[in-house]
């Protein structure tokens, strides 16, 4: 492809290598021609849907265009090539994600590393919530890591803005294991608290190095969640029984502090406090991103690790183009 700063969008980027393909899109690795910056191009397949474009692509473009934050993935450009009519999203290239790192047992997480990742996630989500955007699909797999160690929230395919108060929202969002209890009950008017729950579960997963609440199916998820955290009642969560799917629950007692301490043996008391307030069953009492960031967990020693010093999975060769294929971006 030819160089040139201005000119048609395609000549500003190169598509070097295909790194992944999903139902809705193909992901290529490429470069921004004028500064050699690595990028990922997500080419959305058109013609698959009778209504035109895939909803998640529209959502991704819509919200990423608005959000600019160090802990949110950057949408550099959007273009369509005249010959194919496909929609192309140019995103910054991020070689790793948190899920791979959690699964890689040869990497040891220090408490300060976990703190740093949680801090960056909270900063990113705080920026979204500040702009009244719900992410609705937070999971380790969607928290990507830049070569400098910065964590970036990605995949805004399920994101949406807080609607009008009377609008219904679908409760069928968020990957099952990270789904908040109000969503399990089929709530249609949830708020930012659903994202905070997911972050709480991710926090637990970072400490345990294994998924915290792995439900086998939607019903099992309810059981697993309440076995770990207690069944909500009208006392600790007023009006819960008015949610559509709240019925015939097996009643589990809430876990005692000691049980939690045994489960998270490496966590300090402050860390447990934060975890408890993030995984508070009642969404009205669950802590917000602002409250979480102001929590004393972050000021307590040890200080969060600097992003550049965080553990990485594989040291992706700086200039060489032969990154591991497993390092490809997430499924699309």
């Amino acid at each position, binding site marked *: 492809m030819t160089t040139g700063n201005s000119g048609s969008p395609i000549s500003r980027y190169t598509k070097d290598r295909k790194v992944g393909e999903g139902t809705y899109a193909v992901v290529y690795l490429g470069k921004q021609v004028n500064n050699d910056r690595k990028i990922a191009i997500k080419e959305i397949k058109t013609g698959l849907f009778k209504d035109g474009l895939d909803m998640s692509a529209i959502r991704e473009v819509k919200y990423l265009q608005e959000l600019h934050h160090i802990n949110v993935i950057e949408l550099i450009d959007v273009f369509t090539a005249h010959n194919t009519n496909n929609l192309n999203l140019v995103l910054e290239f991020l070689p790793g994600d948190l899920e791979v790192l959690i699964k890689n047992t040869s990497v040891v997480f220090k408490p300060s590393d976990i703190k740093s990742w949680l801090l960056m996630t909270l*900063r990113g989500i705080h920026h979204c919530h500040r702009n009244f955007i719900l992410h609705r699909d937070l999971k380790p797999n969607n928290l990507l890591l830049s070569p400098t160690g910065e964590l970036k929230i990605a995949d805004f395919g399920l994101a949406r803005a807080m609607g009008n108060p009377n609008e219904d929202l679908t409760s069928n969002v968020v990957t099952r294991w990270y789904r908040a209890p109000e969503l399990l009950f089929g709530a249609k008017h949830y708020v930012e608290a659903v994202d905070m729950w997911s972050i709480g579960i991710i926090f637990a997963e970072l400490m345990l190095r294994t998924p915290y609440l792995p439900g086998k199916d939607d019903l099992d998820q309810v059981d697993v969640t309440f076995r770990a955290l207690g069944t909500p009642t009208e006392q600790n969560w*007023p009006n819960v029984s008015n949610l559509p799917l709240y019925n015939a629950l097996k009643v589990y007692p809430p876990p005692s502090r000691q049980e939690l301490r045994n489960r998270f043996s490496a966590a300090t008391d402050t860390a447990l406090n934060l975890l408890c307030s993030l995984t508070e069953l009642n969404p009205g009492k669950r802590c917000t991103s602002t409250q979480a960031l102001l929590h004393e967990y972050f000021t307590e020693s040890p200080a969060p690790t600097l992003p550049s010093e965080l553990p990485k999975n594989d040291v992706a060769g700086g200039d060489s183009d032969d990154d591991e294929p497993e390092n490809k971006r997430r499924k699309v």
Partner: protein
Amino acid sequence: MIEDDRSKDMCPICKTDRYLSPNMVFLINPECYHKICESCVDRIFSLGPAPCPYPKCGKILRKNKFKRQVFDDLVIEREIDIRKRVNSIYNKTEEDFESLESFNSYLEDVENIVFNLTNNVDVEQTTKDLNKYEEEHKIEILEKNMRESQKNADFVKYQESIAQLKHEKMRIQQQMELEDLEYQRQQKQVLLDKLASNPGGSSEELIAQSNSNILKRSSLRKRQFQQLTNQLDQRIQTSNPFKRGRSSESDEVGSSTPFTPFKGDRDLNKRYTLLDTGKTDADVSTGTYHDPYVSGLAKNKEFLGAGWRLELVFERALDEAFMGMGCFIDKEKELKAEVKLEGGDGISV
């Protein structure tokens, strides 16, 4: 291979097999490193020093020198033994030297000796030197040993006290939890009794009262517990010789890079104050804002159960109304352009 494995599990003296007596233990002696099972050692050496029963070995061994093998590889086992012995003689640490260089050359000397002894190079000369050094520095070595053991004892004491503190805290908390449960049960019983004794009275009032009782007590208990743990913490702080230096150090590090939770991404300067939201339709007095439609939604229990709040709607409307005030896009663009020119890498700022 199979042959090898079997010989590994069999005592070459009495031919006892691990397969038949799974409890058998092999011992070795650092004189010759020949493997002998425990019962053989008891049998042969209990009457005093005797020669090694291995053919063509014949070294005189003593029972008290026999020990369990730690490393599978006998070469490593032997090197560790030698290292232990040499280090007990050459036991200086870095603080005994004026410069790093002299300490390093000392370490190199030690390594040389260990290497010679393990690889059988100049063994006689080296042992002679080693013995000579030991003779000459006897008092120094002893002194150093005393100091080190004192240090170790201090550290062990410190660790013990920390563990004790943790244990104590846990015990108190557990006890409190138990007591709380008992108290709640009692309250429930009292409430039931009360309800039973006056069937005409309003039951809801009584329930509310007992709930508030429980709440009051639990917050009191929390404070009590906090106080107790603080006391314990303080006690350990004052008695601990190590912590002091460290804590002041970490303070210095902390103050040099202040922690900013939001990194500036927070709107502290809200340009409005939220008025009271009128709770009922009738409550449209001054100082409140009442929107009949949204307030109507606030009565919907399904909305409330999902975490929806009336205030959130108003806050959002106001935030959005004032968002971007005080931002000058032209100015920011200029700034951005400047940075781009300086940096030249074009990564957005």
